[in-house]
């Protein structure tokens, strides 16, 4: 099958070279290596297997014809192509499954059954090939003449030396440093609370007892200020707030808390008006909003920050300052 000369053609080298060296374990069927059960099944069994395979191929044919018919008859305008998708996807899947299944049954039931063992060939190339490759490389280096062409050598070194430069420069885009942008939000003393959708101010009394409204600071355009600013305005019933600080920072049973979860920063407003639990949908952190947003379940490490609110002369809710601490999840520079 192969020879032991120094220049074998590539085709011969793939997986076949050890044949000459170890003739006993080539992928050839030899009587002592192969465990043979050829034609163990009877003629009737073979006939039955043949029918099985033919039935599977036949099912494939039917499904392919069905696919073609469905493609032209079922409208894709109806229900966003729902039924067309069912028919085309289903028939094509069944066709491929049947044809593939036919091949497998064919292989398992009709092909001769035998076991052969073939050793792995050696990983190294023949010595002659190694020497030739080495010589070719050295010849190439010599032909380039780097020793003679000084200018080429220097410019090449310069070009390769500068190549990492763009990669290093682009590291700058990891910055700039956030400075205090994580610590402050768009809330200032006197900023009106406006509805997140309508951007209209919130009048005292417009929220019912047990109601909740998502509010943002009026007139904030900067995307970073806006991103940290969403706040929940919650109205409790009389005497339902159990924390004095929470009452003092709120206004007439209304309190405002950051809507950004202190765990991973998800927007959080699954508010239960009877239990006063606030649930974060991402990791199930649960805050007791009647006890100063205390964490009662889940991975959050801190209560939600509260925004101090009041009411202006026109009866609209205003912030009495920024959040007293950074809102949202922890970060390295965060104090407390």
């Amino acid at each position, binding site marked *: 099958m192969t020879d032991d000369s120094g220049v074998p053609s590539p085709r011969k080298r793939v997986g076949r070279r050890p044949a000459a060296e170890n003739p006993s374990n080539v992928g050839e069927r030899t009587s002592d290596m192969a465990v043979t059960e050829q034609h163990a099944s009877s003629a009737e069994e073979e006939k039955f297997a043949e029918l099985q395979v033919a039935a599977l191929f036949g099912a494939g044919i039917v499904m392919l014809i069905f696919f073609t018919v469905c493609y032209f008859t079922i409208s894709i305008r109806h229900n966003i192509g729902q039924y067309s998708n069912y028919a085309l996807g289903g028939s094509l899947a069944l066709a491929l499954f049947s044809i593939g299944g036919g091949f497998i049954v064919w292989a398992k039931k009709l092909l001769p059954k035998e076991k052969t063992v073939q050793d792995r060939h050696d990983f190294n190339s023949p010595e002659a090939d190694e020497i030739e490759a080495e010589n070719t490389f050295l010849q190439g280096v010599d032909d380039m003449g780097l020793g003679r062409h000084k200018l080429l050598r220097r410019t090449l070194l310069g070009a390769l030396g500068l190549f990492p430069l763009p990669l290093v420069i682009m590291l700058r885009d990891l910055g700039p440093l956030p400075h205090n942008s994580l610590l402050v939000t768009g809330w200032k003393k006197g900023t009106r609370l406006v509805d997140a959708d309508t951007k209209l101010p919130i009048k005292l009394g417009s929220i*019912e007892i047990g109601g909740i409204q998502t509010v943002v600071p009026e007139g904030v355009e900067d995307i970073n200020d806006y991103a940290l600013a969403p706040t929940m305005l919650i109205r409790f019933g009389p005497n339902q707030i159990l924390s004095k600080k929470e009452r003092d920072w709120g206004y007439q049973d209304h309190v405002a808390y950051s809507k950004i979860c202190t765990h991973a920063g998800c927007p959080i407003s699954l508010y239960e008006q009877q*239990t006063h*639990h606030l649930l974060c949908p991402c990791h199930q952190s649960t805050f007791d909003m009647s006890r100063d947003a205390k964490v009662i379940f889940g991975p959050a490490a801190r209560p939600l920050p509260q925004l101090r609110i009041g009411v202006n002369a026109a009866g609209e809710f205003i912030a009495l300052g920024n959040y007293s601490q950074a809102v949202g999840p922890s970060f390295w520079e965060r104090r407390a």
Partner: protein
Amino acid sequence: MNTPEEGAEPVQPAKLGRSRKRKVASLGVLVAALGTMGTLYAGFAPAASSASNNDPAIARGRELFSHGCASCHGLNAEGGVRAPSLVGVGAAAVDFQMGTGRMPLQQHGPEAPRKRPDPQFNEQDIQDIATYVASLGAGPAIPEGIDYQSADIAYGGALFRTNCAQCHNFAGSGGALTYGKYAPTLHDATPRQIYEAMITGPENMPVFGDSEINPAQKLAIIKYIEDIKKQPDPGGAGLGRVGPVTETAVAWLVGIGGLVIITMWIGSKA
């Protein structure tokens, strides 16, 4: 016993007389005030109560209430250990709770599930009980004429995502809350029930009053919900429309699990 009084009388006769006169005067004022109050009360209160007593719907509602609701909510809907007071909840709350089958409550638990309305109360019975409960104290009335067809569906979608989607899911499929409670799917709710839920805040749902989300905005939200209810599932099964959780579970368990089983079958000896 008599001696101190008799001895005292001559000493301060004038003073005692004044005191008696004062007592008589204050008694007179009290009687007059009570009389006035009674007259005033008779002038206002009976007018209302006689009207409500004359309303057959309220009388019928009270009767039905005493059979079906009073065991938990109290004979006068004043509430009890097992159930809240219904004074001031309004007709909309009654219509929602009974119309969705949540009340009468089947059993106590974290959440009252939606079920087929109790067959012992028909639509008219529910209306009468609602009228009776509404007569106990002012509350949201049953919304009439909910015409959402001309509402702005895109605006409704934006409002839904801000105010509703966090609990009820982006496709209205509902979702879990804390300690066994859950926000129900909206796919079975009628437009009227959705409207009533917003204005009454049933169970743990926050109240969204008309000054927070105005009626036009409510209709826009309803239009959006009615539209997502009708949306088909073009990719096949919706898998509850709860997003990547069920989709990944099916892909891993059914898809990859099935492939592993088929691979094992192919590899096995015939």
